[in-house]
C-alpha cells in the first residue's frame, strides 16, 4: 500500500468523522444524537486553541490536553495534522486537486512553487498570539476567527447543516435558524474556491494553525527531503539514482515547500507525501537526515514583519477596548447563555466554535454581530425571538459542550438556585422589561396575560394587577332592563363581543357585573348578580373590560426570555429581555442582594 493511499484514507476518515460529529450534536439519546459522542475532539486536538487559552488564562483547560498529543506528534514527525487530520485542509486539498487536475504538469509545478506571501500566516499567528498575551493588561482571544477547526465547525454547524437538514429533518424537527451567518458562508465558500486559483490557498497563506505547526516542526526527527545516498562501492554509485531536476515532485506538492529546489522548506511541508510518490527516480524520501540539497527549517519571516505583527497584536486589544464596550458603554442586548463567565473573562476563552449554538435545544443561542463590539463577533448571544422558547428552564446543555469553559459546565441546581445553591439563588441572564406602550393590556385595552402564564419560575416573576377600563364607545344608554338582560338604545354592538368573559358593566355607580352575552342591542349579565333595583330607561351603563396588567418582579426574573418569545406582539415584542441584572457581572446589577 502506498503511503499516499493511507493519507487519502486518513483524510476521508477524519473528514467523515468531523461531519458525523456535526450531525450528532443534537441533545438526545438516539445513535445519531449526542449521547457520548466526543463532538469536541477536533477542537480539543487543535493546539492553537490550547495555546491561545494558555496565554489568556494561564491554564490548560481539561479536554484541551489533547492538543499536547498533537504538539508532541508534530514535533517528532512534522505537520501531519494538515494533511492527515484537518478536515478543512482535506477540503482544500480536494478542491485544489479537482479544480486543477486538467492542468499540464508544467502549470501545476508553477502553481505549487513557494511564494513569499506564504509568510503572511506567520504574521497572522503572531498577531493573534500577542492579542492574547497580556491578560493582566488587556487580552482577547480572537484566534477563533481564522483558526481552521472553529472555522469549519462554524461553517458546517451554523450554515451547511441547517440548510441541508431543512429537507431531511434529521438533526432537528423544526429547522434551525442562525442570524447573520451568510457572512460565515461567504468566508467559507471564498476560502474553498480560492483553491481553484492556487491549491491549498488558505493553508499556505492564511492558516495560523499551520503557521504554529510550521514553527514547532523544526526539530522533527523525520522529514521529507532528497535522499542522502550512502554507497558501498564505486560501482553502485554509477548506477545510483540522482536527482535529474525534473521537478515532478512539485507537481502535486500541497505545502508549496519546494522539495525539488535547493532548499527544502521544512516549515511549509504538510507531509502529503505526493512528492515521494511522484518522484520516478526514488530520490525523495521521508528520512531522518536533512535533504541532500539542503533545507530551511525556519519559517521565512522577516524581522520587520514579525515586529509589525507583534506591535499590531499588542495595540489591537486596547484600541478596540477604547469603545468601552466592557465598561459603561456595554450593549444591553448581549445576553449570554447561562454559565457564561463575566465578559472580560468570557472573551479570553471563547473560540467562536459555535458548538453552544449548535447544541442549544431551543435554538435561542445565536452568533453575535459587531453591534456589541468587535470582540462580540460570532460569540454566543441569546435572541429570544428565534427558536422555540427562550432559554428553557431545565436545560444546561450549552455549558456542557463548550470546549474552553467560556460557558461553564453548570449543574441544573446552580442554574435554578436549588439545593446547595439555594442561598446564592438562580443564575440570571438578564431581566425582562415590559414595554407598556406596546403591551396589549397596558396600551390597547385588550386582555392578555400570555407572558405571565408562560413565566416558568415558581413563584412567577410576572404578576398581574387587575384593572377595569371603560372601553371605547363604552358608555351606553339603557332602554329597558328585564331579568338579566339590558336592552340598549344603541344597536350597533358587535354580536358576541362581550361574551368572552372579560367584559363587565357598571350601571351608574352600582356594582360591577359580568357580561355573559350580547347582541347588537342588548347585554346579558351573569345571573349570579341580578339587579336588586332595576335601572330605569335612560340611565347610563358603562361597559368595561377587565384587564390583568403584567408587572415584572425583578427580584425573581431570571431573564430566560420565555415571555419575550411568547408575547403575541410579534414584531417588536412588548416584553423584552436585556442584560441588566445578569448574575455573571458585578457591575450590571439592578438590585442589591438581599
Amino acid at each position, binding site marked *: *500500500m*502506498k*503511503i499516499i*493511499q*493511507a493519507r487519502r*484514507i*486518513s483524510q476521508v*476518515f477524519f473528514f467523515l*468523522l468531523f461531519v458525523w460529529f456535526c450531525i450528532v450534536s*443534537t*441533545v*438526545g*439519546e438516539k*445513535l445519531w444524537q*449526542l*449521547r*457520548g*459522542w*466526543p463532538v469536541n*475532539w477536533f477542537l480539543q486536538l487543535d493546539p492553537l486553541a490550547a495555546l491561545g487559552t494558555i496565554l489568556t488564562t494561564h491554564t490548560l483547560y481539561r479536554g484541551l490536553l489533547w492538543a499536547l498529543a498533537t504538539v508532541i506528534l508534530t514535533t517528532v514527525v512534522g505537520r501531519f495534522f494538515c494533511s492527515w487530520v484537518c478536515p478543512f485542509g482535506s477540503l482544500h486539498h480536494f478542491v485544489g486537486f479537482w479544480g486543477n487536475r486538467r492542468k499540464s504538469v508544467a502549470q501545476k509545478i508553477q502553481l505549487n512553487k513557494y511564494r513569499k506571501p506564504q509568510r503572511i500566516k506567520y504574521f497572522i499567528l503572531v498577531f493573534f498570539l500577542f492579542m492574547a498575551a497580556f491578560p493582566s493588561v488587556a487580552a482577547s482571544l480572537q484566534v477563533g476567527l481564522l483558526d481552521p477547526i472553529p472555522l469549519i465547525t462554524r461553517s458546517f454547524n451554523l450554515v451547511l447543516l441547517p440548510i441541508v437538514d431543512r429537507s431531511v429533518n434529521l438533526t*432537528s*424537527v*423544526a429547522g434551525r435558524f442562525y442570524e447573520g451567518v451568510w457572512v460565515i458562508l461567504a468566508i467559507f465558500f471564498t476560502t474553498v474556491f480560492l483553491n481553484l486559483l492556487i491549491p491549498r490557498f488558505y493553508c499556505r497563506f492564511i492558516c495560523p494553525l499551520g503557521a504554529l505547526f510550521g514553527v514547532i516542526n523544526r526539530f522533527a526527527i523525520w522529514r521529507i527531503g532528497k535522499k542522502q*545516498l550512502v554507497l558501498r562501492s564505486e560501482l*553502485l554509485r554509477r*548506477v*545510483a*539514482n540522482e536527482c535529474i531536476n525534473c521537478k515532478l515532485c512539485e507537481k502535486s506538492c500541497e505545502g508549496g515547500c519546494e522539495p525539488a529546489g535547493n532548499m527544502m522548506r521544512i516549515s511549509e511541508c504538510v507531509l502529503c507525501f505526493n512528492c515521494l510518490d511522484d518522484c520516478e*527516480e*526514488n*530520490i525523495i*524520501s521521508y528520512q531522518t537526515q536533512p535533504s541532500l540539497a539542503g533545507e530551511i527549517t525556519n519559517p521565512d519571516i522577516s524581522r520587520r514583519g514579525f515586529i509589525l505583527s507583534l506591535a499590531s497584536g499588542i495595540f489591537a486589544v486596547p484600541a478596540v477596548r477604547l469603545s468601552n464596550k466592557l465598561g459603561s458603554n456595554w450593549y444591553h442586548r448581549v445576553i449570554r447563555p447561562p454559565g457564561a463567565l463575566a465578559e472580560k473573562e468570557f472573551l479570553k476563552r471563547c473560540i467562536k466554535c459555535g458548538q453552544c449554538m449548535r447544541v442549544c*435545544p*431551543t*435554538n435561542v443561542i445565536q452568533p453575535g454581530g459587531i453591534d456589541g463590539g468587535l470582540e462580540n463577533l460570532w460569540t454566543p448571544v441569546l435572541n429570544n425571538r428565534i427558536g*422555540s*422558547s427562550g432559554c*428553557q*428552564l*431545565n*436545560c*444546561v*446543555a450549552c455549558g*456542557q459542550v463548550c470546549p474552553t469553559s467560556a460557558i461553564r459546565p453548570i449543574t*441544573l441546581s446552580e442554574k435554578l438556585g*436549588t439545593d446547595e445553591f439555594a442561598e446564592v439563588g438562580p443564575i440570571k441572564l438578564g431581566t425582562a422589561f415590559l414595554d407598556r406602550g406596546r403591551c396589549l393590556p397596558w396600551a390597547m385595552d385588550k386582555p392578555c396575560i400570555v407572558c405571565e*402564564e*408562560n*413565566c*416558568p*419560575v*415558581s413563584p412567577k416573576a410576572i404578576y398581574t394587577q387587575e384593572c377595569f377600563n371603560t372601553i371605547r364607545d363604552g358608555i351606553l344608554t339603557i332602554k329597558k332592563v328585564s*331579568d338579566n338582560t339590558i336592552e340598549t338604545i344603541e344597536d350597533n354592538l358587535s354580536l358576541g363581543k362581550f361574551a*368572552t*368573559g*372579560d367584559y363587565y358593566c357598571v350601571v351608574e355607580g352600582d356594582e360591577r357585573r359580568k357580561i*355573559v352575552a350580547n347582541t347588537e342591542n342588548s347585554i*346579558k349579565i351573569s*345571573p349570579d348578580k341580578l339587579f336588586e333595583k332595576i335601572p330605569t330607561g335612560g340611565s347610563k351603563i358603562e361597559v368595561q373590560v377587565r384587564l390583568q396588567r403584567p408587572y415584572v418582579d425583578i427580584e425573581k426574573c431570571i431573564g430566560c426570555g*420565555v415571555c419575550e418569545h411568547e408575547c403575541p406582539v410579534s414584531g417588536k415584542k412588548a416584553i423584552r429581555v436585556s442584560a441588566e441584572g445578569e448574575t455573571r457581572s458585578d457591575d450590571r446589577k439592578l438590585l442589591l442582594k438581599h
Partner: protein
Amino acid sequence: MGLVPGRAKRLESVISICLLAILFLIGVGVFIKQFNYNMSRYGIDTATISKLETQNSKFEIPFELSSLVPAGFGTLSEVEVYNSENLYEKINGKAPLYIESGFEKLSTQRFVSINNQSLWMELYAYDMSTVKNAFSVYSVQRRIDSEAFPPMQLAYKTGNALYFVHGKYYIELVGSSESGELFRAIAEVARKIQANLAVDHDTGIAELAMFPQENLVLGSIKLYLANAFGFERLTNTFTAEYRSGNETVTAFLSKRADSKDAEAIAESYRDFLIENDAVTKSTTNKTLEGKVMDFYGTTEIVFTVGPFVAGIHEAENQQAAEKLAEVLVNKLNSVNNE
C-alpha cells in the same frame, strides 16, 4: 531503479497499514466513547427539551404529547395509547360511553411539576372521530359544579380539572390537587393544544345556535348520539335547560334528513310514549295542538318544524313547557327560513 527498492516499498506498505490500523482504533475508540454518557448532565428530561422544537409546528395524529409540557413541568410517565379494545384498561366502566360514541383512540400522559412533585396532572386526549361525537361525550359528562372557562367556548372547569372539545378531540386535563399553580399549568397545556393541534374547524356544531338564547342555562346543551330518552330512534338529539322561575325546563331538538323523516320520527316517538302509558293532553296553544302529552305527571311536548324534531321533555309545569315550546317553534322557524 533505486537502491533496494523492494524493501523500501515494503516498509512503506507496513507503515501505511499501521497508520490505517491506528485510524481503525480511533474509530473504535470514538464508537466506544459514545456509549458512555449521562443525559442528566444536560438537564432534566432531555427528550422533552429536544422535542420542544415541535412546539412551533402544527402537529397531527399522533400528536406529540410531550411537546405540550407546560413551563416548569416535566413528563411523569410515558405516553399511553388505547384503542377500543383496551380502553377499559384505562377507564374501566366509562369505556362503553366512548366506544358507543365513535371512539377511535385515547392518548394520555402525565406531567409533573419540577419543583413540587405533588403537583401533577394527567392529560386524556380522546379522538372521537368527529366534532359532534367529541361534543357529545363532553356534554353528557359535564359536572354540575362546573364553571365556564373563557375564552374557550366548549370548555368548563372544576376545582382541579379542565374539560374541553377541540375539533374531534375531547380533552380532559385532571390535576392532582386544587392548586392555583397547577391549574395555571393546566390552562397552559390547554392553550398549547388549541394553538398547535391541527383540527378541522369548519365542521362546527350548528345545532348549538339553534336553541333560543333567552333563559338558556349556559353550558347545559347536551348531545345524545343515540337512545335519547330511552327511545332508540331518537338519535343525534340535543337537549338544553331553560330557566323558568325557580325551575328548569328541558327542551330538545334533532335535525333529520328532511321534514318527512322528522314527521316520522316524531310520530314514532309519540307512539313510543303512548306505549309507555303517556296520554295526550289538551292545550290552549293552537300550534301545539295534539303535541302535548302527559307522562306520569310530567309534560312532554313533541313536534316538528321542517326537518327538526323538537319539543320539551318531562317538564313539571305545563304552562312553562308550552311557553318554551312556542319560543322554540319560533326560533326553529326562523332558522328554517334563513
